[in-house]
């Protein structure tokens, strides 16, 4: 075997995924911490500790979210070049075509997106920066070399959910930065703080949706075009039991962590 570990690690998909996930980490951490403080803000907490916690956390999220949109665009372009089938799955693009449209919402059925909102030529424009570029469709590969119809719908839902949440986070961030910079104050509207509270869990949903997009989107391959998932899966029995046990363990740990954090919040450590 002539293994090339460094080429395997630093492959063509490594860099955009690294940067994309790196920013996602900053965004999730920023918005989750900000959400906790925004919830306190809505309940009338105004002391310095709260203000600093809110502003610092929100600043990281607000700065990283717009950058993430651009990095996401780079990631999509790389996917279009390296894994055209995966891009077709993102969009539910059945036939290969020039000037491919982009569908928002809708359901993929029988090789096409139904009930969606169509934007003509937008997919070609986004993926190749050319409205008339040819985009490879799902018909380019055999049906058993691409995700099932259900898989395609899962990927579309995750991908669009990620983009939708990411865009809203960026908009929220820009709003905060603008008010903070130009008016030299925090926003007054309770709607803003409500949006920040929602942004915490939503940013985490977007992160998971991104992983679902990339991992389900490449099915049925576990190593792209080399090894199928069905050939890699363990033959050990009782895996559902193990997963069930893990769920119980982690739910228990989460519950204990929540209890402990609340206890600490009631009686903070002496600093």
């Amino acid at each position, binding site marked *: 075997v002539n293994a090339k570990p460094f080429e395997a690690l630093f492959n063509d998909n490594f860099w955009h995924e690294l940067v994309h996930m790196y920013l996602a980490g*900053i965004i999730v951490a920023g918005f989750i911490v900000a959400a906790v403080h925004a919830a306190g803000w809505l309940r009338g907490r105004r002391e310095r500790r709260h203000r600093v916690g809110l502003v610092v956390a929100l600043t990281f999220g607000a700065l990283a979210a717009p*950058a993430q949109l651009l990095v996401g665009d*780079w990631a999509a372009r790389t996917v279009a070049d390296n894994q055209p089938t995966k891009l077709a799955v993102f969009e539910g693009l059945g036939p290969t075509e020039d000037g491919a449209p982009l569908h928002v919402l809708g359901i993929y059925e029988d090789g096409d997106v139904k009930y969606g909102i169509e934007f003509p030529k937008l997919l070609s424009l986004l993926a190749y*920066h050319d409205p008339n570029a040819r985009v490879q469709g799902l018909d380019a590969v055999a049906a058993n070399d691409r995700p099932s119809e259900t898989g395609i719908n899962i990927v579309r839902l995750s991908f669009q959910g990620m983009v939708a949440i990411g865009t809203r986070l960026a908009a929220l961030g820009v709003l905060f930065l603008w008010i903070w910079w130009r008016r030299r104050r925090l926003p007054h509207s309770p709607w803003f703080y409500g949006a920040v509270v929602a942004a915490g869990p939503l940013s985490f949903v977007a992160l998971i949706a991104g992983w679902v997009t990339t991992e389900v989107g490449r099915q049925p391959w576990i190593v792209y075009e080399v090894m199928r998932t069905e050939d890699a899966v363990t033959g050990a029995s009782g895996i559902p039991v193990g997963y069930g046990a893990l769920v119980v363990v982690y739910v228990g740990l989460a519950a204990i962590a929540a209890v402990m954090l609340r206890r600490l919040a009631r009686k903070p450590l002496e600093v």
Partner: protein
Amino acid sequence: MWGRSPLVLAWRPLELAEPGTNLLEAPLVLADVAAALIVIGLTAYVVLGGADFGTGIWDLTASGEHMRARIKRSMGPVWEANHVWLIFVLVLLWTAFPPAFGSITSTLAIPLFAAAVGIILRGGAFALRGEAATMLEAHGLGAVFALSSILVPFFLGAAVGGIASGQVPVGNSEGDAWSSWWNGTGVVVGLIAVVTGAHLAAVFLGADSHRAGQPDLVRAFRTRALGSGIAAGGLAVVGLLVVRSDAPDLYDGLTSGRGLGVRARHGRGGTRDARARVALAFRAGAIHGRGRGGGDRGRLRPRPAALHAAARADRSGGGRARRDAGRAAGLRNGRDGGAGAGARLALPPPPQRPPGHREQRMKAALALFVLGTAVLVPFDAPVALVAGVFLLLAWIVVGVFAVASPERLAGDD
């Protein structure tokens, strides 16, 4: 090959030795280096991690708060850190010997999974124990901690026993999910792992009590070390009989050639100097592992149950080891004293800058964002992508200093 100095280890093309060649003369192959690293990592985990688990047992059965405090002070700085060795071994096994990794993890999914859950619960209980508010909570967490301290080494040992007795064939889940490890050899090795860990822990804690000048605890841990040592030795003898009927191949390997030498040393060992043994166990365990590792090329049956090795080797004494142990203890001591020194750092008051600085910084951040967009989005050349990414990261960094600067945070609405 093991006779060579590590200095001549060179990166050679992967080639397999002809059958029948004397392994000491055979060319070194990359697979041997990886295997040697795995044996070293496994030995370290058995000795250091084993002592870690064993300490959990002594913590449960501690005769008073005095002893519990000593345990906390001795193990506190390194507690739970030893799992890095397990991760090291798993990653090496996975990358260097993927078929072995797949065969072991699929057939032995049950004990390995149970051990993993035990490690999670143990770490969780350990982290939370200090926060317990009621006696009920403290007892519950203590029970979880102690139970997992026993179950984790048992299951890991049982997995090793299953591999050593040849119950794990190559292939995806080819062996039986239960009988591959729930058999004589597996159970015996599992028990030896638990008792060995307890012995190592008692030896180490005794040495640490001696260093701390607590003679009553030295006596207490000496008794525990002797008891667990005798138990481990007895189990090893019983285990040999079990292995003889359960896994004759393994028995032959243990009772002839290099394996015999180590067992002989084990037999005449005493319990003279508790402190020397922990460090020596580490060294001797590694030597023992080496002795066998070379002979098993190409077979998925690493005969050296390093657990046996450590259990046996730690009975002898030595000056070098004593020095090593002393040095290790000294290091720990230094860390104890230094802890908390950094906790009381006085923050200087933030420098007052004119507001114009902030304005400039914000504009600079915006410029970085616009520039990053202009470079990243329209171009596909790697240099443009790299520049674009760095400009966007710079936007975040400069932006944080512009937006959340100390002087702005200090101001009120």
